Every structure is written in structure tokens, then in C-alpha cells.
């Protein structure tokens, strides 16, 4: 009887108990902070207290064994407290510079059997922090690419930007494996996005049993789906492929419309979005590469493009200038010129608010 003794609606644990004492004592009293070195922060309280934070990268996808190892470290240095950032980094908080040194040494020494760091220190300040991402082939039914592998491939390649603070401003990279964008890549400095490029296949044999056909028809934002009959007279659907923009929404609504395809699927790259209100307003990322192949497991094309963009940006942007602000300042025409990314018709908007993206002035550069 599942309702016996049932406890429900208790929510998460209360945050206060999870705060280390130095946080409890200085809650709301922080005066300022400093990034002592990449991955190491100090926050100074009005009370004079200090808390040192050592931030480490993490794969986000981790095992019970790894969690226990994190706990071991936290127990050893941090009185049994640990936290995770909004970008899936791990933070160890201590209250003295000595503990920082010991901790750093310990963390730097921990590697997986294969040699990767378990706890690379970094992700602060003007860096490439951890990549926010999604499930991909590890758990989801709609991906157009894989998430964890692409993130690993990219982070390996831009590792020095994670452990350094050499960029003009922070560069936030995000990844989502389909247009649902669970990685919320729509406002990232660099966004990697799995995209489909073939219309769904219709599983005529079962579609009228497993899906509500009218619901599926109305799920298509472009009205590409209409009712049809099989030769046997069964109710089914048809898709006008020239109207399809491969959003996958119909598949979300109906399992009999699989859209994934080895040759069709791949990766789009968007750049120039941001979330913070600092200097410029939050803005959307823009598609600058419409498609790169799903070259598993290391996506060399994607990785190279990302690296190239970061390098050109790092060399050309002004201090404090986010990637999108840089691109807007120099103009997108110069962005393409400088990065060497080809401009194609796919990058021109033709969706609902397209008009607002058109150049309605003679102000442009050759």
C-alpha cells in the first residue's frame, strides 16, 4: 500500500542547515570579493570574516562514487559542506588561506584512471566556465546530437580558458541537444544546438492508435501536417516537407513521427547571447553556423569553430566586452569576415519576427 505512512509535499531541505557556519554568520553581510587566482575566490564580510571558495569543473553526469569522493574532500577541508554553482561547478568553501592551499593541492592531484582531472580548478572571472547542457543520447528521446560527449570534447579543447582568466569578459557556452533547448542556450555567448534536418517519418502502421491525430496536426507551428489515409484506408497523416522546419514538436506530441536521422541530424552554432543586464541588455544568441556534422565522439568541426570564435574574440574585443557586444560593435558582417565563417542564406531569419532582423538602413560595412 503505497499510501501507508505517506509523507508528501515536504519540499526540499531548508537551505539554512546546509550553510557552513561562516555563511550563516555572514548572511547578507558580505562587503566585497576578490578572485585571488583562477578558481579561487575570497569574499570578505562586514564582520571581517572571510570565506574562500575553490571552484572546480565537473562533468555534471557523475556517479555515486564520485559524489562520495566530493563528500570526502568536503569532510576533510570544509566541515562537511559543499555546493554546486548554477553552471554545475563544484564549490568547496573554507575559512582560511592555508586550507585553500591544502585543498588546491589535494584537488589538483585527483585524476581519473585515464588521466583526466577529477576536479580542475577554474571557472571564475573572464573565463570559459562549465558548459550548461542537457541529456542527449544518455537519457532523452528527442536529441539531434549527444550532449555529454560534445561538452567533453569542447571543454578539453578550451581547457586553458577554463583554468585561466585571459578573456575580455566571461564567455558562457551552453549546449542543448534539440530545439527544446533544455540547456537554455538561447541567451549564451556560444550555444551548441542539436538540429534535425529531415522531416519526421510517419509510422503509418500505428499512428492512429498511439497518437491523437488532430492534436498532432495542430502541434505543427507551420501547418505542415494534414490528415491522410493509408492505401488500406487507415487514418494517418502526411507532412508537406517543404513546409517543415524540423522543429520536432510533432514528435514530442506523437511517438509515431520519429525525426532523428544519422545524416539529417547535426549541430548549429549560435553566438552572442547573454543573460546579465550589465552594460547591454540580455539578448538572444544568433545562428552563425547552420549545420555541422555529428562527428562522434569528438565533433572536430564543432570544436574547431568554437575555438576559432573564442580566439578571434579574445584577440579583437575590448576589455569588459561580451562576445555579442563585440559582434554588434564591429558589425555582424565583420564577425563573419574575421572568424572566416561563411555567411549563408540559412542565417537569414524567415520566422515570425524576421522583419526586425533585416537591415533597414544604409549603415553597413563592406
Amino acid at each position, binding site marked *: 500500500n503505497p499510501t501507508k505512512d505517506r509523507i508528501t509535499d515536504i519540499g526540499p531541505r531548508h537551505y539554512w542547515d546546509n550553510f557552513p557556519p561562516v555563511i550563516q554568520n555572514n548572511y547578507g553581510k558580505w562587503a566585497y570579493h576578490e*578572485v585571488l587566482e583562477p578558481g579561487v575566490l575570497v569574499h570578505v564580510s562586514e564582520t571581517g570574516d572571510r570565506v574562500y571558495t575553490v571552484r572546480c569543473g565537473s562533468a555534471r553526469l557523475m*556517479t555515486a562514487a564520485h*559524489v562520495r569522493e566530493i563528500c570526502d574532500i568536503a569532510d576533510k577541508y570544509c566541515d562537511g559542506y559543499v*555546493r554546486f554553482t548554477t553552471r554545475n561547478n563544484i564549490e568547496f568553501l573554507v575559512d582560511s588561506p592555508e586550507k585553500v592551499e591544502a585543498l588546491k593541492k589535494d584537488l589538483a592531484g585527483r585524476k581519473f584512471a585515464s588521466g583526466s582531472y577529477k576536479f580542475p580548478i577554474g571557472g571564475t572571472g573572464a573565463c570559459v566556465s562549465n558548459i550548461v547542457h542537457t541529456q542527449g543520447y544518455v537519457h532523452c528521446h528527442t536529441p539531434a546530437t549527444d550532449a555529454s560527449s560534445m561538452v567533453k570534447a569542447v571543454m578539453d579543447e578550451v581547457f586553458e580558458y577554463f583554468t585561466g582568466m585571459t578573456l575580455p569578459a566571461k564567455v558562457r557556452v551552453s549546449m542543448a541537444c534539440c530545439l527544446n533547448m533544455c540547456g537554455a542556450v538561447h541567451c549564451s555567448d556560444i550555444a551548441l544546438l542539436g538540429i534535425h534536418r529531415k522531416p519526421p517519418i510517419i509510422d503509418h502502421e500505428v499512428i492512429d492508435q498511439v497518437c491523437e491525430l488532430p492534436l498532432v496536426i495542430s502541434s505543427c507551428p507551420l501547418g505542415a501536417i494534414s490528415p491522410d489515409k493509408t492505401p488500406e484506408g487507415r487514418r494517418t497523416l502526411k507532412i508537406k516537407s517543404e513546409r517543415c522546419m524540423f522543429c520536432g514538436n510533432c514528435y514530442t506530441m506523437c511517438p509515431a513521427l520519429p525525426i532523428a536521422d544519422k545524416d539529417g541530424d547535426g549541430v548549429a552554432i549560435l553566438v552572442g547571447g547573454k543573460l546579465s543586464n*550589465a552594460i547591454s541588455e540580455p539578448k538572444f544568441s544568433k545562428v552563425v553556423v547552420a549545420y555541422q556534422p555529428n562527428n562522434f565522439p569528438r565533433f572536430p568541426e564543432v570544436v574547431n569553430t568554437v575555438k576559432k570564435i573564442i580566439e578571434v574574440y579574445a584577440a579583437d574585443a575590448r576589455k569588459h566586452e561580451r562576445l555579442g557586444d563585440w559582434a554588434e560593435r564591429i558589425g555582424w558582417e565583420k564577425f563573419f569576415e574575421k572568424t572566416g565563417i561563411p555567411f549563408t542564406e540559412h542565417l537569414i531569419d524567415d520566422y515570425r519576427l524576421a522583419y526586425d532582423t533585416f537591415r533597414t538602413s544604409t549603415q553597413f560595412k563592406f
Partner: protein
Amino acid sequence: RHEIPKVEELEKGPWPSFVADAKQEALRRRKLADDRMMIDRYVVEDLLGQLELSFEDGETHWKHGGIVGVFGYGGGVIGRYSDVPEKFPGIAHFHTMRVNQPASKFYKTDFLRLLADLWEYRGSGLFNLHGSTGDIILLGTTTEQLEPIFYDMTHELDQDLGGSGSNLRTPSCCIGKARCEFACIDTQEMCYEMTMHYQDELHRPAFPYKFKFKFDGCPNCCVASIARSDIAFIGTWRDDIRIDQEAVKAYIAGDIVPRGGAQKGRDWGKFDIQKEVIDLCPSQCMWMEDGKLMIDNENCVRCMHCINVMPRALKPGKDTGVSLLVGAKAPILEGAQIAQVIVPFMKTEPPYDNVKEVIEKIWEFWMEEGKNRERIGELIQRVGLPKFLEIIGLPPAPQMIKTPRANPYIFWKEEDVKGGFTRDIKEFRARHKR
């Protein structure tokens, strides 16, 4: 168990390898006593095997959806089944559970250990720390284990599930006052209070679609509220930025490193307050006067830039409160949206009754008018912001818009216009021949 050359490629390189980690867990499971595992011993190995197959096929090998859950809850579990179960029986069922993380993700290790033990025992032992919405994600278990896990979690860990489906999703917040000098609101308290107050909305889907709350202590938006929540609660202030002129001098003199040293990996030369702060102020409301930094606060748009660069000299004001922005979402279907201002500023104190009132009015409207799978941001676009404001009872303010409308297509109401809408063609024709 499986040949996984491509997957194993991902063990290389400096960044933490989820493959190397998974293999250590797989190894551990091989050795674990039978009674220490309630699901398949080879669950991790099968997962890696299926991942290899997916790389080869260039297609996911998970079936579409599957409705599973715990009794009385409509969310918190995502059902998942392999479409090649004969090859990978360990992951034939592979449901995830979303566990409501504590506000701003501070943990005590005893809790994490208990959770790791529980999950290794009744699940795959694989986690996401954390999911994009903020939950602790427990990756992969079988249908039978869901109830026992829920039982153990609530009874032994004092811990509830998070959201999924058409309900309030697990709220989430930035680190705020816990370790940030910029926080203008108590993000943890607000996040916790809203999570607790709306447990029913969180667990029992009754909405047209998902609904997300995120709480940011200031306009830097470290938890991405403005782009990723149906209501973004963002701390701000409406009095003057506090200035410590001595510290300003110290920054100018080079005695304090700008932006807390966040850019010191490169030599950017001497700090130049004019170029780096004053000239970059989006509202151009700062200037130097007799060696003092002056701010015309009336024209400050509270972008945080000057404060970010000189945190020891500048602080947000003391008359703090919250801005409410509504409607952020990913692109499905009408295109992505960034949240839009609907309450420029409000003061609020726990238990935040005035904020709850706004939330509830929004929900009421959305539940009445929203179509199936229509996010609140899309609904506002569909009915129009003016109508939304009218129904919610919020006064229109120029702060809600970037710019007034360019088109003259105004929906006048009958009561706006003298004489109403009904007119008599005969009277008209008496004045105007056809």
C-alpha cells in the same frame, strides 16, 4: 560487457571524463554484493554500450516518453525505456527522478552520502548535479523502484521530489546573500517560501504547461532567471548607488584591482575609470568631478556594470525590492523569449503575500485563457500585453516597454468612445449620400 571504442575516446583529455567516472562505477557494481543493488548490476555498462550504439547509428536509442510516477504526484519522474532492450537489458527501464535541490545548492555531505547510497541501491548510481532547471537528477531506475525510492527519500532524507510535466517546476535561485555582496533580495528565503507554499502546484499538474520560477538577487542574473523562467524575480533598488569615494580613488590609483581581479589573466594595462566604467555606462549617467565619481542616479538603469567593476567602491542602494519579469522560454513554438517587465519594482517581506497575489492572478488568467502547451509568455503575446495587464490589474507603465508602439492599430473599447460603437446607417446616410 560491450565494445565501446568511441565512448572510451572520451576518457582522454584534461576535462573530467564522465566515461572514466562511469567506468569506475561500473567496476564497483561488478563487485558489489547482490543485495546491495535492487536494479541490474550492468546498468552502467549497458548505458555506455547503448551510447556507443547511438554514436554509430547517429540516433538516440530511447523510446518516446512513457508515463510513470509516484502515487499522488503528477511530476518528478521522467519515464524512459531503451528501444534495444534485448542488447541492453540493464537499461530496459531507465527512468529519471527529479529531486528538489536545496536553495542555491549548498549541501551537507551526510545528505549527499545518504542520497548516493540510496541511489546506488535502488538506481543506477548515476547523477546529474544538477539538471538545467536546478533539480538533482537521479538518472535511471526501474518502475518498481520508484515508490520505494520516494518512501526512503521522504522518510529518511526529509527530501521531496521536484517538478516535471504541466506544473510548477522546481524553483531555483542564485547564491545571493549567502555569499554575494550584490544581493538585493533574500533569494534563498524567497525561493524556499515559494517552493513550500506552492507544493501542490509543484506536484500535481493542473496548468496548461510548465511554469518556472527563478530568483536572482540582482540584475547580473546568475541563475538566468530572465531567460529561463516564466516569472523571474530579480532584486534591485530604487535609491542611490552607495559610493565610497576613497575606494574610487584607490581603484584609480591602481591600489585595488578592478572587478575583483576577474580579468587578471591578461595584462590589460592600467585601470582607466573613464574608458572602463564611465564610457561603458549604458545610460551615460556618470562623470568625474573634482576627483569624485558622480552618478546621476535618477538616470541610472541599475545595470550593475560600475558596481561589478568596482565592488569595493560602489554598492547597490538600500531601498531594495524586486522586479517581476514574465514569460521567458525556449523557442518551441513561437520563438524564444526573454522575460518582460510586468512589475518594475515592489517591496516585499516574507511570506511575500503581495508577490503571491500577483503570481496567483497570473496563474488564474493562464489557466482560464491558456491553450494546451501554451506558455504564459506566448499567451501574453497572443492576447496582447495591454489586455494582460488589465486582467491582472497592473497599471501600464513605460518601464514595461522598450518603446511605445510604432503602429497605430489601437484596440479602442466601446466605453472609451463617446456614443459607443453602435451607429445608425440611416442617420449617417442622412448626412452622406451614397
